[in-house]
């Protein structure tokens, strides 16, 4: 039973990684860019949601919607100002700019909202479903996170595979210049990707802070790195991969803590990641690209 309880804790933690990883993987899949500022957009989303729900006492659903709206807007502005001018630049230059944006958002949040941690009001309450006479418990947040993850996965997959805009995104992902020749507005498509990714970040922020309720300007950065790891684990660019990678990372982390060493759990997580990548160099569900000579 203890084992199962740890498994459930792992799934709860993993579902949070998964929902953050979805945003990472989507932006990477289309724009081929590691957006290290993603974790900080999550933090902004969580703050907006906090103020809407705790200060202005709006219903949680409305709070999340407002956060999504503002984060989408933020994503568009950041993309326009910082990433768009670098479309032709080497990918490393974009990576560094993303890190600059990450510093900017963290420090702006520090000035705007102070460094004092805030306790996030759960958007769904702190209750839990009890199974087997209370021997196992699954919190409502975990269930909501997994349902949201699945929902986002399905909607994203449908959007990318079935709509014209989604088709354009896939085309950009395959070959930007060919897509351009086919009359696709590559710039607009990539901007749209960022907008969607940032909107998702707001949802992730609300769920992250509902599960682990302290909110600080640095809240997004470490889960962001973990989620990035999860995305690579599952095969970056693959949407089901991000989900699977997130869940597995969470479970491995909890098991490592419980059965190996609570001090070395991070080392174990990263060691597993390295082993997986050595066996499957493109991650669990990633596409193996064969090089053409």
């Amino acid at each position, binding site marked *: 039973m203890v084992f199962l309880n740890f498994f459930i804790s792992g799934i709860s933690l993993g579902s949070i990684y998964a929902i953050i990883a979805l945003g990472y993987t989507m932006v990477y899949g289309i724009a081929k860019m590691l957006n290290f500022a993603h974790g900080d957009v999550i933090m902004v989303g969580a703050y907006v949601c906090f103020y809407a729900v*705790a200060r202005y006492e709006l219903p949680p659903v409305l709070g999340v919607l407002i956060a999504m709206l503002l984060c989408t807007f933020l994503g568009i502005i950041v993309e326009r100002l910082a990433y768009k001018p670098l479309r032709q630049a080497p990918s490393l230059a974009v990576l560094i700019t993303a890190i600059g944006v990450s510093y900017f958002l963290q420090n702006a949040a520090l000035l705007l909202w102070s460094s*004092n941690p805030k*306790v996030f009001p759960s958007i769904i309450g*702190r209750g839990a479903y009890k199974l087997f006479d*209370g021997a196992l*418990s699954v919190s409502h947040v975990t269930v909501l996170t997994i349902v949201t993850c699945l929902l986002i996965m399905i909607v994203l997959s449908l959007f990318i595979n079935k709509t014209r805009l989604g088709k354009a995104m896939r085309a950009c992902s395959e070959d930007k210049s060919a897509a351009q020749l086919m009359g696709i507005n590559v710039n607009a498509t990539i901007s749209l990707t960022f907008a969607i990714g940032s909107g998702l970040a707001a949802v992730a922020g609300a769920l992250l802070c509902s*599960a682990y309720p*302290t909110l600080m300007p640095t809240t997004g950065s470490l889960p962001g790195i973990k989620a990035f790891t999860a995305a690579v684990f599952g095969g970056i660019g693959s949407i089901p991969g991000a989900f699977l990678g997130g869940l597995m990372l969470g479970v491995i982390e909890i098991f490592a803590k419980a059965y190996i060493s609570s*001090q070395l759990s991070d080392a174990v997580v990263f060691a597993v990641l390295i082993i997986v990548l050595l066996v499957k160099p493109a991650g669990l569900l990633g596409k193996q690209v064969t090089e053409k000579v």
Partner: protein
Amino acid sequence: MKKIFVCTALVLALAGSAFGAPFKLGGTAPLTGGAAIYGMAARNGAQIAVDEINAAGGDITFELRYEDDTHDAEKAVNAYNALKDWGMQVSLGSVTSKPCEATAAENFADRIFALTPSASSAAVTEGKDNVFQMCFVDPNQGSASAQYIAEKKLATKVAVIWKNDDVYSKGIRDTFIEKAPTLGLEIVSDMTFADGNDTDFSVQLTDAQTKGAELVFLPMYYQPASLILAQAQGMGYAPKWFGVDGMDGILTMEGFDKSLAEGVMLLTPFNADSTDPKTVAFVAEYKKRFNEVPNQFAADGYDCVYAFKQALENAKANPDQDADEICPLLIEQFTTMVFNGVTGENVRWSANGEVTKDPKGMVIQNGAYVGLD
């Protein structure tokens, strides 16, 4: 009569600022990054004290300058050097332990006297005759906690959850683990977390629960502690909780459900709900200016400035003296004087820079601190 009094006060204030130039008081603190909360608090507390002292217009006035060290030894030394270029005469060291170890070595080499508000590791003062602490040194907190738990017979089976990459947490935990068995306490679970995995505590809590710990000792700051309390409630685990001075502040977190902290015990020198007039005045002023309830760091910063004032007054130091002339005067004062502040009465310092003051056992009842004794 009252008018005359106000007039004289005004004249004195003017005179003070006209004759005696202020002492240049400098310190480094994390003002950005994850540890900014501690640095900001210490700076705000010190600023209030400086403003009060300057407004009162005695012989001693201060000019305070805090520089950002982002909780990093390298940046702290940079910040310290910037303060030195500014002409710092007395130093508040650094707010966090590791940066303060680095700046304390500089203080020692440059003969600039330092009193750190909150850098609590033993290595901060070790081997340096001119570096003093306002807060308890970590090992003392560990053994004091063990002693308190044993003496009050709070529990015999104890679990410890601590932060592995934090000097403060590790320092307290080490002496606690060492001391506890000699007092008849049994450590049944000893689990850690670190920066990268400080969100989920189910493993640590399950371990403590299955091994039958009656009391969980939490040598850490209040932010992870708040998560631990919430998750323990989620799993229906309700042991006694025992915290250290870093736990202070948990009740003032915006949005924190105070019922979670019901029954938590902690040893802390400062209590924002105290009815002591000095504390009441300080808390009111802090709330007015910063819109928050001061925590222990703010109180330590506040006390440091007043301790400096008292020592400088007694030593009859004047602001034209260089830092290395003021330094021996202050060493003499701090090793002999008795100080009364918001973090304790009858505060004394030993020659190695460590503070002696009474930690107060507090328990949280109905969302407020109540003295345990």
